[in-house]
Structure formats: structure tokens, C-alpha cells
């Protein structure tokens, strides 16, 4: 269970997010609407990674693949002038579910370092596939001519509309993943993280549950990609590059592995640091690195774990 403090911080954060466009507008800094929209998209992606990494011990080093797939679902359909948002969304969900199912089937036969390497390799295959698709701009990428069209009156080009759409998606996915983690299904995933042999011995065929968790994470991350494609109006294989997967892992670590909500703050911290430090230097990671090391050394459960109060998974 969440401590009162953590729950208050969480609810407070969402309230601030809800009020942010008004504040940004009031201080005449509309740039922050766009920045926070990006933060929220990567929050969704990082949280989906934490769902398998922190709770299921599936250390995927290729999770950004699903962000890429989400943007391709929007971009490729828009390229062929299919701009119906519902259809794009359906293709995105079915596509990421299918691909994560196949990749999970392959990679979940391994564990530990082998799992890391195989998810890395599979995602890189898609990255190079993206580069080879000259039709869609190869490694230069391709502008997405039109954002998704859902229904009359929903103006996807309005920054406020996009912002609240993203905030809505973040809220729904956060709540849904939190329910899942505490459900019977979630207990199986977490138990298999803790001791897979024991889970099998008490009668759980854990493979299919782990695979299902892997697919859920892929689909949720695909949604983040769907939103990112709409926000940036750009499709590029670069989103699938392993470096991006590494960034997601850093967001999870900074926020706190196996805390679900932590990665929301991890994504925020990472993107804000990038934004802030890169004002001074192109090599902002040079300064970010030591901060990350300190955090990993002194706060194993990341930012979220520094808050007092017992977390389900953090207690030893």
C-alpha cells in the first residue's frame, strides 16, 4: 500500500499537471506545455518499462522499440493518407501487441544478461529495418503530414488539447497499471521476479504470465509512441535506437525501480536535466553521469524510494 505522504505527492503531482497549461499561459511561457507533454509521454514509456523491469525482473534493453513502433503506426498510415485516429490507434495496439508477443516468445526463454542482450539485439534489428525503409525517409526520418483525426471538434493541433489528451492517457495508464500490479495477475508476475522456481513449484506455469506482462508493457509503451508521433509530427528510426532504450532504463532507475510511480518522476528529472544542462553544454551527459552514480549508490530505490514510507516491493 502507498503511504499517505506518497499518495498525497502523487495526487498533488497530477493536480499540478492539470493546472500547468494555465500557469504556463499566465507567465507567458507556453513552451512548458510542450515540454511537459513530452515529459508525460516518456513517463508513460518509463512506467511501462518499470512494470516488467521492476516488477517482473525482465530487464528489457530494447523497450524504446515500442515507442518507435507507435510513431510508425501514426506516420506510415498518415503517409498513405489514412488519418483516422481510431484506425491508427487500433493498428498501433494490435501491432505492438503482436510484435511484443513474438519478441517475448523468443526473449523470455532466457533470463539475466542473456535477456538483456536478446532484447537489445531484437530492438536493433527493427532500428536497422527502419533505416532501410527508404520510402519512409530511411535514417533521416519523415515528417508526419497530418496528426490523427479522431472526431469533429477534437483539434489535435491545439497544444492544450494535445496536452490534456496526453495527461488523460497518463492518468488512465497509471491507474490501470497500479491495479494490475496489485491484482492476482500482478502477484504472479512479482512472485516470479522474486523466485520463479518457487512459483513453478506451487503450481504457476509462469511463462505465459510473464509473456502477458511483456505484451502489456509493449502496448502501453506503444501508446506513448502514438502520442509522441502526434506531438512531434515526425517519424524516425532513431526512437528505436538502443540509446533511447538506455534512456528509458535511466528514467526507471532515477525514479525508482519497482515503484511504478517513481519512473514518472524519473522521466521528469531526466528530461528537465537534459533541458537544463544542455543550455550550458552540448555534453550535458558528462555532468548527468556523476549525478546518476550518486543516486544509484545512495538511493537504490531512486527518487521515489527516498520518500519515507514503505513501498510494496522496496521493503527488505
Amino acid at each position, binding site marked *: 500500500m502507498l503511504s499517505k505522504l506518497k499518495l498525497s505527492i502523487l495526487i498533488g503531482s497530477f493536480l499540478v499537471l492539470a493546472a500547468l497549461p494555465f500557469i504556463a499561459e499566465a507567465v507567458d511561457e507556453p513552451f512548458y506545455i510542450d515540454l511537459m507533454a513530452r515529459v508525460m509521454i516518456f513517463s508513460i514509456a518509463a512506467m511501462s518499462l518499470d512494470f516488467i523491469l521492476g516488477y517482473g525482473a525482465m530487464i528489457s534493453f530494447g523497450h524504446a522499440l515500442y515507442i518507435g513502433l507507435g510513431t510508425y503506426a501514426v506516420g506510415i498510415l498518415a503517409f498513405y493518407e489514412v488519418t483516422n485516429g481510431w484506425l491508427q490507434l487500433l493498428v498501433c495496439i494490435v501491432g505492438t501487441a503482436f510484435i511484443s508477443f513474438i519478441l517475448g516468445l523468443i526473449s523470455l526463454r532466457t533470463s539475466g544478461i542473456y535477456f538483456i542482450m536478446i532484447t537489445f539485439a531484437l530492438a536493433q534489428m527493427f532500428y536497422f529495418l527502419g533505416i532501410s525503409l527508404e520510402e519512409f525517409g530511411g535514417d533521416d526520418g519523415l515528417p508526419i503530414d497530418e496528426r490523427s483525426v479522431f472526431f469533429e471538434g477534437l483539434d489535435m493541433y491545439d497544444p492544450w488539447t494535445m496536452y490534456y489528451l496526453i495527461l488523460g492517457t497518463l492518468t488512465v495508464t497509471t491507474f490501470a497499471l497500479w*491495479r494490475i500490479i496489485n*491484482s*492476482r495477475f500482478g*502477484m504472479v508476475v512479482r*512472485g516470479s521476479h522474486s523466485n520463479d522456481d*518457487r512459483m*513453478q513449484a*506451487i*503450481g504457476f506455469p509462469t511463462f505465459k504470465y510473464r509473456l502477458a506482462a511483456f505484451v502489456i508493457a509493449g502496448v502501453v509503451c506503444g501508446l506513448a509512441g502514438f502520442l509522441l508521433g502526434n506531438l512531434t509530427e515526425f517519424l524516425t528510426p532513431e526512437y528505436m535506437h538502443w540509446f533511447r532504450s538506455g534512456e528509458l532504463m535511466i528514467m526507471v532507475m532515477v525514479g525508482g525501480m519497482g515503484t511504478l510511480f517513481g519512473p514518472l518522476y524519473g522521466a521528469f528529472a531526466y528530461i528537465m536535466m537534459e533541458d537544463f544542462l544542455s543550455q550550458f553544454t552540448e555534453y550535458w551527459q558528462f555532468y548527468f553521469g556523476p549525478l546518476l552514480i550518486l543516486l544509484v549508490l545512495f538511493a537504490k530505490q531512486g527518487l521515489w524510494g527516498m520518500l519515507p514510507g514503505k513501498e510494496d516491493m522496496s*521493503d527488505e
Partner: protein
Amino acid sequence: MSDPILKVEQLKKSFGGVVATDSLDFDVMPGEIHAVIGPNGAGKTTFVAQIAGMLKSDSGRILFDGQDIGAKTAPQRSHMGLARSFQITSVFREFTALENVALSIQAHSGHSFKFWKRASTDADLTEPAQKILDDVGLGERALTLAGNLAHGQQRQLEIAMALATGPKMLLLDEPTAGMGTEESEQMRQFLDRLKGDYSMLLIEHDMDTVFSLADRVTVLVYGRAIATGTPTEIRNNDEVRAAYLGEDEVTAGA
């Protein structure tokens, strides 16, 4: 005479050149406690892992409840009524004692593709789990994280988790491992209470426990059964004394 609930025929397993299980014949009758003893490295834990389905045997047959289970996975064997405990305590440390047992119950109450309802307050799981914890004497520690339980209590929880799967037979891999004299005695009494309700394959180092509980004892040395018999027969068997008991007397104080 009834058929054995577990029957092992000519079971073999080797790791590289090391033979861990060597043409082993073994059986357990319904309601019986059949203990397996033997010096370290005799292949006792390998034997349990083969029966529980965690290790694939090289050859031989394992019949449980009349069925050949050689090709079945560990979860399938659990659903047939075979439950095991682990020599190295394998409770879920970051779950409460109650959640540990509830997981066992969950594994045996339909599929777990249930994504919404909170499991930790699901009375269908927690009520039977609490009952089992009460039975094993851990009722008051239900909400303690398993990792924070005393060692002896973790061993009890191990067995509670096995019992919660509703088994016909228990495979107990050194239930008193790492326990002091007093804790061992409590465990012995506890197993004594279970006697008759469950068939048991008991692997145990503690000779007092073995000789007071077991109906039959098999002595394993280098993967081979060198003797099987009643506790009295085993105690008086010269070969066994030479291979094992004498040595154990020397190390018993350790």
C-alpha cells in the same frame, strides 16, 4: 496391499561425469513417511528436484498416483497433488506471510489472468491462507514480511505454502535445515501431526527427526540406495553405519 502413491523405477541423472542419481528404485505408500538420508553430495536434493519436475531425468520412470509424470512440468505436477518444500528457504521475502500462502492458494483456484481486483484483500484467497497459517502456528505473524520472520518461522512458512496447494504428497527437503534443537523439535512435532494425512518423502539430516517420524528409511550414497528398511533395521545395518551413521556421529555436534 494398496499401490504406492509414488513409485520411482531405475531413475538416473548425471551431470557431466558425476552420477547424481544412479538407477534408483523407490516408492512411498499412501500415508507413509519414507525418509531419505545420506551424506552431503549423496544426491538427495537432485532426487527431489527430479520428482518435483525441476530437473529432467536422463532415464527411468516416475509414477505418481498411477500416472507416469516424467514428461510433466513442475506446475503440472503441483496440480496433480505433488508439493515440495525447499532445502534453501524459498519464501517470497518481500511478501507478507499471508501473501505467501495466498499465492499458493491462488495457483490452485483457476487461472490468474485477473487484472483488476486487488489480490491482497480478496477473501477467497486470504481466508483459507489465514486458516493454514493458524494451523501451522504462524497465525499471528500473518502480516509480517516473510523476510522478517525468524528462520524457524520461515521454514514453517515453506511447509504452509506446500500445504496450501492441497497436495496428496509432500516432498520435504530438509525441513529442519539450519534450525536449533528447540526449533527442530517443534518442526518434528508439527510433521508428526501431519503424519497420516499426507504421504511424505522426507529428506533430513537430523537423525532424531528421521528415526522418530519415518516408517521407512532409504540410505542414499553417491546416488545409489544402499539400504531400505524400518528405522530399526537401518540403525542396525552395518553397511549403513560404515557409510553414514558413524560419520554423522562425529559431526553431530557441529
